[in-house]
């Protein structure tokens, strides 16, 4: 039986083309790989090669023909032993089933109904009205507490997890012999040795990729970036390799690992060393993102991050490293992802923040209380997943919301929350949601300008007065 040679699609978008030139004639013997014709697509002139061997029985489309549809028969190929008479009675259809036209496929996909029980919006949504927020305490009442800096809490979390699991190791610049650029890893080299506390050269892209490979290979890397500003050198490995592999492999392989380090503005270090990446990473499906404020959360969330079977971005803050908080004295204290913490209950307005933004939000709440305005203050703690339930439940109570963060204002976490609240609690709002954020400028060096660029508690107070119409 003669095989029909079909007009090929030679680019992802080609639907028809011009058969510019035949390079074979009827009666020619052809081998697989031999160039049969030149075909002009919408982009270029391409050579079209034979797949099967045989003899050209008939050319069905003359050279120079324009508008030849993809999958239309253009020639007949005779197998060994067949003669040209077979060409007179070709097989009734193409040798293989042609694919759906591509435009149609695209339309089908766009219109595809979602499977039942799946989220109805592009993000995982809380049902409307919101589920009851999880308000269980982080530790049992009466637990003994001790004061600890964020720095010590982070160190303890790593030491405990490295003791618990041999496959956990720490790598980064100056984490070992130097004892950490910010002393987060102080003492870990002595405790765990150079096999598990690894000093790297200054080569973020490279060591982030090596850590991703180590995670594919079954280890649990903790990658310390001296600051997250330097992680921009490695962002391809973080997003394209670490975050997407589980999905691209159909669940066969993933990158259980933690990328951690200080994020956001420190003090007087200028534009290239002062940027909050919370919103950047929070946008990526496949990543989890934690951004603690207190020492207890730093410890509990980091332990959870190290145990998580997915890549976690763990955003710390240099200014918070030295601050002290009460931390529960418990054998194995962890904080779950996706559970916000209500630091202060209130009735007039909801302040939502995370990381160092919490310092401004709490300070603003004190100032507001002095003026008789009662603010509820929520620390999101993780930005992926986000605890929408707690936010919505609070907004339904206070009917007003102000978000507080240090990052740039465009495409911020606050912008996202505003949209979410509008979609899910519109009827409860008595005022627009206001986002307090860093200014839309690179961080200046001059002390007065830097102060102006950062979000302040006074700005939060002003925003609250606006939404409470005072």
């Amino acid at each position, binding site marked *: 039986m003669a095989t029909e040679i*079909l007009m*090929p*699609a*030679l*680019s992802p978008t080609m639907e028809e083309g011009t058969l510019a030139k035949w390079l074979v004639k009827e009666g020619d013997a052809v081998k*697989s*790989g031999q*160039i049969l014709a030149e075909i002009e697509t919408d*982009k*270029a002139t*391409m*050579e079209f090669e034979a*797949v099967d061997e045989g003899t050209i029985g008939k050319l069905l489309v003359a050279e120079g023909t324009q508008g030849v549809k*993809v999958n239309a028969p253009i020639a007949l190929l005779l197998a060994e032993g067949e003669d040209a008479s077979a060409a007179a009675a070709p097989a009734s259809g193409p040798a*293989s*089933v*042609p*694919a*759906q*036209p*591509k435009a149609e496929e695209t339309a089908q996909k766009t219109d595809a*109904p979602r*499977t039942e029980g*799946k989220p109805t919006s592009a993000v995982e949504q809380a049902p409307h009205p919101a589920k009851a927020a999880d308000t269980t305490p982080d530790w049992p009442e009466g637990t003994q507490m001790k004061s600890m800096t964020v720095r010590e809490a982070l160190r303890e979390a790593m030491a405990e997890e490295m003791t618990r699991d041999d*496959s956990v190791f720490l790598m980064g610049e100056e984490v070992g012999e130097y004892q950490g650029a910010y002393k987060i890893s102080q003492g870990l080299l002595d405790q765990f040795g150079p*096999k598990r506390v690894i000093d*790297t*050269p200054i*080569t973020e*892209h*490279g*060591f982030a*990729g*090596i*850590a*991703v*490979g*180590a995670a*594919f*290979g*079954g*280890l649990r890397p903790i990658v310390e970036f001296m600051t997250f500003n330097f992680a921009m050198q490695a962002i391809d*490995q973080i997003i*394209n*390799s670490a975050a997407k*592999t*589980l*999905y*691209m*492999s*159909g*669940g*066969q*392989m*993933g990158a*259980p690992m933690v990328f951690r380090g200080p994020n956001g503005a420190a003090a007087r270090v200028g534009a290239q060393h002062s940027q909050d990446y919370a919103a950047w990473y929070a946008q990526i*499906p496949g990543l*989890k993102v934690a951004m603690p404020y207190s020492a207890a959360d730093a410890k509990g969330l980091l332990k959870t991050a190290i145990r998580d*079977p*997915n890549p976690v971005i763990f955003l710390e803050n240099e200014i918070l490293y030295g601050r002290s908080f009460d931390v529960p004295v418990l054998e194995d204290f962890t904080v779950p992802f996706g559970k916000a913490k209500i630091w202060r209950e209130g009735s007039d307005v909801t302040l939502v923040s995370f990381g160092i933004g919490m310092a401004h939000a709490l300070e603003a709440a004190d100032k507001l209380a002095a003026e008789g305005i009662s603010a509820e203050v929520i620390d999101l703690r993780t930005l992926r997943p986000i605890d929408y339930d707690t936010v919505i439940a609070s907004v339904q109570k206070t009917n007003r919301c102000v978000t507080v963060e240090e990052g740039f204002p465009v495409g911020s976490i606050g912008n996202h929350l505003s949209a979410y609240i509008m979609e899910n609690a519109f009827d409860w709002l008595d005022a627009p949601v206001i986002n307090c954020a860093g200014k839309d400028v690179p961080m200046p060096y001059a002390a007065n300008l830097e102060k102006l660029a950062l979000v302040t508690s006074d700005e939060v107070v002003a925003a609250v007065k606006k939404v409470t119409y005072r």
Partner: protein
Amino acid sequence: MAARKAPDLPNVSKDELLKYYREMLLIRRFEEKAGQLYGMGLIGGFCHLYIGQEAVVVGLEAAASEGDKRVTSYRDHGHMLACGMDPKGVMAELTGREGGYSKGKGGSMHMFSKEKHFYGGHGIVGAQVPIGAGLAFSDMYKGTDRVTFTYFGDGAANQGQVYETYNMAELWNLPVVFVIENNQYAMGTSVKRSTKSPTLWQRGAAYGIEGEAVDGMDVLAVKAAGERAVAHCRAGNGPYILEVMTYRYRGHSMSDPAKYRTREEVQKMRDERDPIEHVRDLLLTGNHATDDDLKAIDRDIKAVVNEAAEFSKESPEPDLSELWTDIYADVAPQDA
């Protein structure tokens, strides 16, 4: 590369030659079929064929042992077939079907097999290089003597992360074989137009890494070099670089008009240096096989490839619910 000389009958067994012939032919026929399915619109997006380079992966897989790992770029179909992945699963991934290795969610450039220690299939040029070193790091950390083959092209050889990786791989003595598949064109840019260095493998010397150039159209030469590289790594001597000189017959991807080289150049390579014809000559001249024996193998391979193509058409598209799966793991797949 010189014209193919008359084979001088190397010391290699009949079974070995037949194995290489079969494996290389499988890749060639599979890729031709993939090109055909692409032309019919059954395979979408980008599709990078391996035709012409078959001796590279077949030779290196012959030097590998159970448990060794491999990772490569987006031109990955040959690597998957050579390490024993099922042609049906690979082809069905190309057509974006449920029966594909990634359930249709990865595509031609993003496929993996935990079982065969194949770690992708990476679409970003050069990104697989530190990942390969990291896989080797995991073996060293666990104290095994396994080796990771990290494949990349002459194009990727100019990426900065390759040299960041060379530096750490040698510093930490990682058991990784860096395989530069020099097919002489990075998309449309020839090696001569992208670097003044006369060789790519010698760049390793700056980091203290040993290596060599290999004739990549000769599967026996590739295998011998692979064995030297593996022995070096397994003995704890750190990384090794192989620059395998090869040639791709087809365009960079299916939509490449390939105007950057002449038709004569490609035809000359096919006529004089084809890696499959080379083994075929060795089999026939050494009286290891008759024409009929080889025809029977051709028929077998064709049947395997046709079966893969049929499977890839019949396997259904993934269920719509798959959109929302495999974004987060409850348990790391490595631990499952």
